[in-house]
């Protein structure tokens, strides 16, 4: 390493640089890096192609889009809770596991930023990535628009609900990712947790609980379910309770991510 450079090119002016940058800028910096690293690897493209193919398969083949004879995207959105069950953890599993595996978490958390800025930045980057993948399903909207006259408000609600649900799954994946440096374990944990959110309100599950559990527990478990909240979005209803549900799952999971990261460092 050059010692000449030290004397020839002292860091003149560096100290004049703005020392204080806002939290938002840190979050953007981290999100930008994260998003760039998605697209730097083939994983992003494989994911998007896979996502679009599956969307098409379920919508047209399983959902019988054309046979329905109605100008709506019900056949498309109805599969999203199940599609996301595997695809979202695949996106979220690396967020913190990778940092721990590479040891870069030590760099990141000794930078002059707060852990929250890193957690939110990483989450937003992955969410934006999922939003891009979801946005690429726009030909479906064009198709129903061409074939009939759909209610675009309902379609918009469907997309909004789908995005919020993806965010909730993603926040859970971030949380399980912080638990372990092994991405496979992180993936499985988050699939299981998300599966619980899907099944919690499902009649076979509640019926099983009804036989022995007190009523409040049955209702409590059922209230965790992602399905009824997403269904109202599909019907074109934006209910504040559904918004609160998804946003609180996101907030709670990210908060827990912070607690997990903190406890790792505390040893």
């Amino acid at each position, binding site marked *: 390493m*050059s010692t000449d450079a030290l004397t020839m090119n002292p860091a003149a002016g560096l100290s004049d640089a703005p020392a204080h940058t806002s939290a938002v800028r840190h979050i953007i910096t981290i999100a930008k890096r994260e998003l760039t690293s998605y697209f730097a690897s083939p994983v992003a493209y494989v994911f998007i192609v896979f996502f679009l193919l599956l969307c098409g398969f379920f919508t047209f083949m399983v959902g019988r889009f054309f046979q329905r004879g109605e100008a709506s995207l019900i056949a498309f959105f109805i599969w999203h809770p199940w599609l996301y069950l595997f695809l979202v953890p695949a996106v979220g599993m690396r967020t913190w596991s990778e940092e721990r595996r590479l*040891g870069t978490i030590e*760099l990141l958390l000794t930078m002059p930023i707060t852990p929250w800025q890193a957690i939110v930045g990483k989450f937003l980057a992955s969410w934006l990535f999922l939003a891009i993948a979801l946005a690429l399903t726009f030909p479906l909207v064009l198709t129903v628009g061409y074939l009939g006259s759909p209610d675009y408000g309902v379609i918009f609600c469907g997309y909004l609900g789908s995005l919020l649900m993806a965010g909730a799954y993603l926040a859970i994946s971030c949380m399980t990712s912080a638990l372990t440096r092994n991405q496979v374990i992180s993936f499985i944990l988050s699939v299981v947790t998300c599966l619980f959110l899907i099944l919690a309100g499902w009649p076979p599950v509640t019926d099983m609980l009804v036989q022995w559990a007190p009523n409040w527990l049955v209702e409590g478990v059922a209230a965790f379910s992602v399905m009824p909240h997403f269904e109202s979005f599909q019907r074109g209803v934006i209910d504040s309770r559904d918004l609160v549900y998804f946003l609180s799952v996101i907030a709670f999971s990210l908060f827990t991510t912070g607690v997990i990261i903190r406890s790792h460092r505390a040893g």
Partner: protein
Amino acid sequence: MIKVHNLVKAFGSKLAVNDVSFTVERGEVLGFLGPNGAGKSTTMRMVTGFIPPTSGRISVGGFDLVNNPIPAKRLIGYLPENAPAYTDMTVYGFLNFTAELRGLSGEFRKKAVHRAVEMCFLDSVLYQSVDTLSKGYRHRTCFAQSIIHDPDILIMDEPTDGLDPNQKHEVRTLIRRMGEKKAIVFSTHILEEVDAACTRAIVIDRGKIVANGTPRELRQKSDLAGAVSLRVAGVPGAVLRERLQQLPTVKRCTIVREEPGAAWARAYGAKGTRDNELNQSLYELAVREQWKLIELKAEEGRLEEVFRAITLPDTPATSKEQAQ
């Protein structure tokens, strides 16, 4: 610049760092020595704010690291153990990212990245992905990251680990040069690095500081320091030893080695003998006895010996020395 008071870190019931206190001022290069698992890395991780201490206080540039971490962290450049870096980024992208997190923007950032690249000779790999780099280059990339904001404080965990001898030399020279204007702490288990780069060294063992001083002061702790060895031809070892022990300046004498036709002895000065008094008396003895003196040498004391003596208190240095 760095003040550490009674630092303790417990992992479960195990005390990784036990009541460590030290200060580092601008212009000092502090070497952190110790066997593997002594608590060097844990201490550095606490000083950089990566892990919180169980108890104790850390002040960096006047800011309390636990209660006011952001301004404290701004002053620090950190090279963690094993030099981690994002493998999916290019060297340029990585340095740009860290500069951005350090709050550098626009022209300042460009200048800072350029300067770090120049100092660490990264020009040739600037647009290469980090995971295609050799270990030396990856190490330099992470090193460049730690100096990108020209920090007042530089903390490096085994900065020469895994480098070839030339690169080691470069890093040591760089540390010494930068140490004139900064406060530097680095850990190592290579003792020659202490002489090559440090103004002061701390030896840490099982979480506790067992020695703290300049490399010279540390060497003085060695039994060997101040001893004189001499090699004489044509005198049997036993005779040599007997004669030497009769001198008032000699406290103790050992035969280091007997070769065919020559003996090699080492004399330890008695209490109160001044500098050079021992050597002179030995020389006079040799002249009186008409010994064929091949070599007469004042011993400096070896860091390695001090290190082993203070990090393994159950085996005293003297017994080891005789066993050699």
